[in-house]
């Protein structure tokens, strides 16, 4: 009997392996390679890749960038219309700075993101379809630049989904996407 609580007898390395077990291992290897390949393929052809440059930045520097962004943009009742394709948003306990921003559908923007204090999350979804959602991590000291292009007009709500203190749940911002 081959028991897991006794030392195996003889040379167990050369003992036979069931045909079905070998088949399953081959299937598994192929599946793992497919999993690997899909990420590579999506990185080239897919439209959702959280890849973009990161820069070291101090809190003061990034605060100045957000202030400059707000000043250069046009203030409206709904939010800031950015002056160019660069958007600066920051999370802080317990609010977002730079939001709400008013964007044009179908136009690509460079979203610069960071935190003024601790780790935060940037979790975004359109009001009309909660299942179309995604989340990013924001870290103090790092400015992350990700291109984004919203095709569907609507209000995209932003909440913080990294625990940042007792008031964490109250953080809210929005992208307002217009035609």
């Amino acid at each position, binding site marked *: 009997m081959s*028991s*897991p*609580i*006794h*030392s*195996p007898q003889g040379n*167990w390395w050369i*003992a036979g*392996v*069931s045909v*079905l*077990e070998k088949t*399953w*291992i081959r299937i*598994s*290897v192929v*599946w*793992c*390679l497919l*999993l*690997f390949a899909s990420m590579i393929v999506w*990185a080239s052809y*897919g439209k*959702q*890749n*959280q*890849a*973009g440059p*990161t820069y070291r930045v101090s809190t003061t520097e990034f605060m100045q960038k957000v202030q400059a962004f707000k000043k250069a943009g046009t203030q409206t009742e709904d939010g800031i219309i950015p002056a160019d394709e660069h958007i600066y948003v920051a999370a802080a306990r317990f609010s977002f700075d730079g939001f709400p921003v008013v964007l044009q559908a179908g136009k690509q923007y460079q979203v610069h*993101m960071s935190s003024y204090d601790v*780790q935060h*999350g940037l*979790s975004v979804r359109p*009001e009309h379809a*909660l*299942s*179309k959602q*995604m*989340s*990013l*991590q924001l*870290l*103090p*000291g*790092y400015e992350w630049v990700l*291109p*984004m*292009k*919203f*095709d569907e007009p609507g209000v995209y709500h932003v*909440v*913080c*989904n*990294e*625990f940042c203190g*007792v008031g*964490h*749940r*109250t953080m*809210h911002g929005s992208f307002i996407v217009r035609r």
Partner: protein
Amino acid sequence: MIKELFTNDYGPDGFRTCSVTGMRIDRTAENFVKVFGLTAVVALVVGGISAILVVLTRWEVVGLLGPADFYNWLSVHAWNLLIFWMVFMEVAILYVGGPMVLGRKLPAPKLAMVGYVLMLGAAIGINWALMTTSAPDHAPVLTSYAPLPSSEWFYLGAIVFILGTVIAALPFFAAIWQEKVENPNRSLPLVAFGAFITAIIAVEALLGGLITYIPTYMWRIGLLEHIDAAWYRQMYWIVGHGSQQINLAAMITVWYFLTHVVGGAEVVSEKVSRSAFILYLFFINMGAAHHLMADPALAASWKVWNTSYAAYGAVLASMIHAFAIPAGLEAGRRKRGAGKSLFGWLWSSPWSNPVFSAVIFSIILFGFMGGITGVLMGQMQLNLAWHNTWATVGHFHATVVLGTTMTFMGLVFFVIQTMFRKELIMAPLAKIQPWFYSGFMALTTLMMMYLGILYGIPRRHASVMNIPGTDFNFAAAEPLFVVFGIAALLAIAGGILFALISVGSLLFGNRLDPSTVFRPTHSWQGDGSPVHLQSMRGTFAFTLIFLAVFVIAYVLNWYLLSRLWEIG
């Protein structure tokens, strides 16, 4: 009464022979297994009580706690169930997989005692720090992400707990060492080998913990000026995910052990199963990278490499075990004529034994719910939709609760009967406990996954139906929250049942000869034909169903992602 729990009929050399497994058991090793196991159950109870508070807060129809209390109790829930319940059990498992399986004395029992005292002291200290956290400190939840400061006693407790665990593991390594010195040409039994791999992974994880918590503690008490958030995340996940890899490796070792002892499973290929453990040794650490997929400061190539090519060494290992363990049960039972048809070997298994049903449900639910979701969220782009949503919490409830906790509950029932030698009280309820608990817990977990992926419900929120300062809320998800709340409360009832049966049996159970409950393993004989030539077609069918579910879930997740706006 307490003394009675630690008595057994040992011979003059301090050993006894277990009537079920035939193992030669050293008195000291057995007593330490009992002490660590009992402490683990206490942590399970504390974590379970906090689960009630957490569930009744997140189910906002009740909305029990305010945010500050909620985060404190969420931290208590995390540390007791993800760390203390698991790690105390795992030290017990090392002492079973090392000295007991090898029939040796527990070396250096004083170290085991020092380790235990440090772990216990740290666990009490951390619990106290978590329950009394108040401004300017913040609840650490599990991750204590710097630079959000938590109580300095919390960081100190984490350091001491890690040191205690390393010390408690030393007697296990010494037993393996002694065995290899005395019998250099004898392979370790598979269970001892699995425990050995688990212990190495554990030491790696624990060293990562010291690298994380010592500088963080120094920062907290003012000795270091600055702590970098990205550095913290990368270091923290060595222990944060590493500790869960200990759970995985320990759980799989226990699967081999209990399917054999309770169901008559055999090892269908020593080569394949051991190679899979070796794959864990080299690749499972890479799993930690999937926590950093939505982070700045890391290149896409770093993310893809670490979560794919490298981590799939471990995914492959898990898929191999997913075949090898049920196949062992199938082949072992077929050999003795237990069930001829495709699944006859399974239906004829001892389902009324809660040790058996707990292990089988754990294998199935871990694989279908925990394993698949782990791979999904570990894909760089898919992680966008999973990161920090409640679906992530669903994933690790599938691995740690449906998988490891279910397995460890089965193991506790086994230890109560074979080591404490107590009959389980409330036998009819004990029989259904694994069915009840795993059923409702699986539903709870599924709801968390749906709520996270389909509604984007964030994790670690005291309320999502009402977000102060805005009209926006997640009220559309309310119906699923109702299912979540009811299922979670019923699952907790199943957990309470486990605690009542365990503690009640220890206190009031009749003295038991375990060979009347478990069929002694030396009677697992059969026709003597080589086990790898037995049919494994039932297992193959199961694994194909598993693969089909995997593929469907995979395609659905990419479809959901493809509907998003353009990012990157």
